[in-house]
Structure formats: C-alpha cells, structure tokens
C-alpha cells in the first residue's frame, strides 16, 4: 500500500519562477564543464597511447629507412682501400650515423635494423643505438646496443623471447659477425650434456675466468651501467685486450611500458664470415635459422 505524497505543496510554498532555475543553470554549467574537461583529459591520454605505440613507429620507420639507404650508399661506393685489406674501420662515426645492420633470424627473415652510433633520444628514434665507447662489431670487448621496446619501431620488442644459442647477426661493410646468446642462468648447470649438445650451440658455453657468472639474460636496475662493460658486471676489472671475449649486449626497458628496470641480453661471437667481393648479396647460413 502506498500513500501518495500530496501534501506540502501549498500555493505559498511554490518556488518562484525567477531565482532558483538560474542557480540551477549555473550549477549545471559548472558540473557539465568539469565533466567535459574530464572526458577531454581521457581522450588526450588515449591519444597519447596511440601516439606512443603507433605514430612514433611510422616516424621511426621513415628515419630507419633513410639511415639504411645512407648506409647502403656508403657500402656501395667503390673501395678506396686496396683489395687485400678489407678491414672494418669505425673511426670518426658521428652521432646518429648508421654503421652496421643487425639481423635476428629467430624473429623472421625480415627482421633487420641499421644500428646507429650513439644512444641519445634522437639516435634511438632512428634505430638500435651503439653505446659510444664500447667495442664495435667483431672487436674484443663488449659491443653494446640499446633499443626501444615500445614504439619508435620497437626493434627490441621481443628480445625477452630470445633463447640461448639464438643467432644475432651483425653485418658490416666487409663481414658478417655471428653472435649467439649465452646460456641462461637455469641452463648453466649441465650445459655440456644438456642444451650444449645442440649443433647450433657450437662455440657457446658458460664463460669462465673473469666472465664467471655471465648469463644470456638478466634483469637489472637502470643504474647498473656495468652490464655494458667489457667484462659485463665488472667495471674496472681490467683484462688485456688479448684475453677479452668478443661479446655483444642488448639493453631495453623492462617491463614493457615501464622504465623501472632494464632487460639485458648477452651474446658471444662464434663466427665471422668475410664477404666475398665476387659474390655480393651472399648471406651466411645462420641467417636461415628462422625457427
């Protein structure tokens, strides 16, 4: 049973037609304005995600293409060096100049990026950037490269999926250098009888001596710059150039969309192929390891 609320509306109690609607209008305008601002803010944030994940990709793809074209032109120029000494020279590389190409066949045949000198924001927009002061491809020491994981071409998007012994090929003017990811921490014990028996793992084994404890993948704090040292993890631990291993290190952000940590992949050089001037376009067999 309900009672209809009919009381309380005496003619005197009727609200005046002038004042309160105006007040309600102002309140409505303010509330609506705030609502519109909030919706706008939400749209701007969404737009930023689109920018970060897609638009930067398009911009970077253009820059990467330009860098690759420039590098191909440099390599295509007739040799000024006499034939017998087809040796790499990485001197006087300006910030933002492409000097090598890297391929990871495990990510597909089309995975190739021109590596850029330097790791400034600008350089990393073009492609993976070489830490200045670290070794160059094929040199003893640590060839260290940083790359974006989200947007800007995201060259290192999937490097967390690299397995031990996966090939990372670095192509320079005269050579192909084959690096392979070092054993992961859980594989080190029993490597010789376990994964190490895989024919692809030839030349890959847990390193000893000053490199003791170095594994294929690690997650570190952003401040741990020692991962790109010639002996990763040991700054100042000098070793003569002769006994240095030839390593490659990739760094990117971790987890995705965060800069809380860094994902690091270490690889060791197992082979070098000299390009045959008589057979341009010849690629090493490692490039076909797509699975």
């Amino acid at each position, binding site marked *: 049973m309900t009672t209809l609320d009919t009381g309380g509306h005496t003619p005197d109690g009727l609200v005046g037609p002038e004042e309160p609607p105006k007040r309600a209008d102002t309140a409505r305008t303010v509330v609506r304005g705030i609502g519109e601002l909030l919706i706008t803010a939400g749209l701007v944030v969404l*737009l930023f995600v689109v*920018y970060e994940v897609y638009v930067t990709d398009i911009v970077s793809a253009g820059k990467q293409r330009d860098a690759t074209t420039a590098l191909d032109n440099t390599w295509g120029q007739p040799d000024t060096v006499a034939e017998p000494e087809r040796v790499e020279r990485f001197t006087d590389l300006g910030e933002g100049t492409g000097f090598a190409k890297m391929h990871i066949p495990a990510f597909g045949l089309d995975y190739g990026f021109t590596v850029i000198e330097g790791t400034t924001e600008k350089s*990393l927009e073009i492609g993976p950037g070489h830490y200045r002061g670290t070794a160059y491809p094929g040199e003893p020491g640590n060839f260290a490269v*940083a790359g*974006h994981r989200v947007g800007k071409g995201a060259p290192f998007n999937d490097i967390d999926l690299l397995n031990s012994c996966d090939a990372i090929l670095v192509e320079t003017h005269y050579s192909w250098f084959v690096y392979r990811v070092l054993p992961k921490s859980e594989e080190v014990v029993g490597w010789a009888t376990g994964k190490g028996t895989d024919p692809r793992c030839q030349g890959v084994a847990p390193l000893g001596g000053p490199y003791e404890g170095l594994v294929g993948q690690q997650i*570190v704090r952003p401040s741990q710059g020692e991962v790109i040292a010639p002996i990763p993890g040991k700054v100042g631990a000098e070793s003569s150039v002769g006994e240095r291993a030839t390593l490659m290190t990739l760094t*990117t952000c971790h987890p995705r969309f965060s*800069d809380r940590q*860094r994902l690091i992949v270490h690889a060791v050089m197992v082979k070098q192929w000299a390009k045959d001037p008589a057979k341009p376009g010849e690629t090493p067999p490692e490039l076909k390891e797509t699975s």
Partner: protein
Amino acid sequence: MYAWIWRHLPGPLVVRILTAVVLVAGVVALLMFVVFPWVEPKLPFNQVTTE
C-alpha cells in the same frame, strides 16, 4: 564548454560542422607534433639505456 564554443561558431550548420572538424584536427595535430614529442622523454615509459 563545448556547447559554448558551438554557439559561438558562425555561419550555417554545414560551415559550423566544418569549422568544428578543423578545430579538432588542429588540436590533435598540436598534441601529436608538439606536445607529445616534448612530454614523452619526461615520462617514465621508454628509457632503454643503462646509466
């Protein structure tokens, strides 16, 4: 806010719609090409190097 802008757009409906579209496109372009590139390195998303 948007109603206020709409009321102040001159011309007939079609012109108003076109003006509104151009305004929105302008704001989006300003965000994409000026604001976002400036603000992006300041945000903790995409630092990939170690120090």
